């Protein structure tokens, strides 16, 4: 049988998916064991025991001075910034994207400026944001919003324009006004597509958050990583990175489930 016709069944799929993860784990364990055998004080590749100990310390023991559980405090701080920012950019993208995509006048007005502005590297704006908005949360939220909104908006506008022209004509022959077309034809069809777009922006959003936290913050997952870097505390950094990855993965999964639950028609419409 040809290779391209070999399809793994459910069990095999699971095994195959687990394989690369297992390989990474094993490779790390070997590397760590070799280094620790040479030098028991090696900090670069701590073993899982050391990482577990460090994370237990961060997650389950309050800081003796401030009484704060660092891992949870950092997570809360980062997630609230990230989710606030994503909510803001999603809302802006939805409104402007639909306007630009649906109304030729809005497209002519805002299309070019959005296209140009989305070429500005957001991180280059970070100093400006810190200068204008101070070192607090506002600047970090603004960075994430700037970094994600423009792409989301362009994506939305393109997807509105992808709607078959027949649908818009049909709605008009049913007597719909511009507002009604936007509200009942375009908006509900954009929501599941918006979820897809936001899923793709979760990664960049984390990037901007961690970058901003690295430069100026007093809590947050990115802040912690860059703080303990000074002590070469890989036993903290690695679990933190895994934790961030897991959070991002869960956000992605939640959005995917939301899409499937809230828009049952979408899977069928997408393949049609």
């Amino acid at each position, binding site marked *: 049988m040809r290779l391209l016709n070999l399809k793994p069944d459910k069990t095999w799929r699971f095994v195959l998916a687990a394989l690369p993860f297992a390989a990474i784990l094993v490779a790390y364990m070997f590397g760590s064991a070799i280094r620790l055998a040479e030098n028991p004080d090696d900090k670069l590749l701590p073993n899982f025991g050391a990482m577990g100990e460090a994370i237990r310390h961060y997650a389950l023991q309050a800081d003796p001075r401030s009484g704060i559980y660092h891992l949870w405090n950092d997570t809360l701080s980062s997630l609230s910034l990230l989710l606030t920012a994503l909510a803001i950019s999603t809302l802006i993208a939805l409104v402007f994207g639909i306007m630009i995509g649906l109304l030729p006048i809005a497209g002519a007005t805002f299309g070019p400026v959005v296209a140009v502005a989305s070429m500005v590297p957001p991180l280059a704006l970070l100093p400006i944001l810190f200068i204008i908005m101070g070192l607090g949360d506002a600047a970090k939220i603004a960075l994430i919003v700037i970094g994600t909104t423009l792409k989301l908006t362009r994506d939305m506008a393109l997807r509105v324009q992808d709607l*078959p022209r*027949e*649908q818009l*004509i*049909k*709605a*008009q*022959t*049913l*007597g*719909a*006004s511009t*507002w*009604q077309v936007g*509200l*009942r*034809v375009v908006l*509900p*069809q954009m929501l599941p597509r918006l979820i897809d777009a936001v899923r793709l922006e979760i990664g960049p959003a984390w990037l901007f958050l961690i970058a901003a936290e690295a430069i100026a913050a007093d809590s947050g997952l990115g802040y912690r990583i860059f703080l303990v870097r000074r002590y070469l505390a890989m036993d903290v950094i690695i679990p933190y990175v895994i934790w961030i990855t897991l959070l991002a993965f869960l956000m992605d999964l939640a959005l995917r489930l939301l899409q499937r639950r809230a*828009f*049952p*028609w*979408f899977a*069928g*419409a997408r*393949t*049609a």
Partner: protein
Amino acid sequence: MTAIVFDKVWKEYGDHVVLERIDLTIAPRAFVALVGPSGCGKTTFLRMLLGEETPTRGRILVDGKPLKAEPNADRGVVFQRYSVFPHLTVLANVMVGREFEEAPILGKLFGLRRREAETEALKLLDAVGLKGHEKKYPAELSGGMQQRLALAQALNRKPKILLLDEPFGALDPGIRADIHVLIRRIWNENNLTVVMVTHDLSEAFRLGTRVIAFERPRNRPEELERYGATLDDVSLADAMSKAGASITRDFEVWPKKIATPLPNGHGAQLELEVGSTDGNKPVG
């Protein structure tokens, strides 16, 4: 009564003439079938009638008044594809027209008015043979059922003109026969003037009261003389692109088909027979 008049209508895109000097009067309650090879401007013609495109020259009159320059509820339409809204259930697809009419801000009806709109939509769905499918989404329907739904949706606003853009082109022959029966019944029982674009000649003659053929004038004797030996010459293609299509044939279908006069003058009535799916019997 809805008579449609094309008064010396031209449609050009820059140098490219698509339609040339269309002079045409469509009688009220006619069922006009437009045929012609692809790219002959049938669809452009329909789009002009829809208000999606405006003529470059000439006028289109409906009931003596110039046609509105954008689509509205006077003219219903069914396209070959994408005619229904994929995010709405079958019932909501039919109801949405009434909701557009009665709820300008929210675009949605509630309470008693919603139930009234639902009852009306259910009656229509029954009439087009979609009873029992109300809660499904269009993607769960077959192609033929989707077109039935598109018809019900268009009829819900009681348009005076129904435009069909190759509506049955993508359907299997058997299903097509069923839906032909339905469309004839709809035409016969409502105050409707139907204009249908099709590339299927037999469909055109079976359904239409009048068949109109569009063609580019590639067989004009003077052209043949001039370019006859250079069929693949660029200049010929060039010259052809400059000549627009026009009406080359116009048949009144014989024997004459006439829609049944409507009982009370011409108020649009929608009382189709129940259970219209078993439509393989020949009609007319």
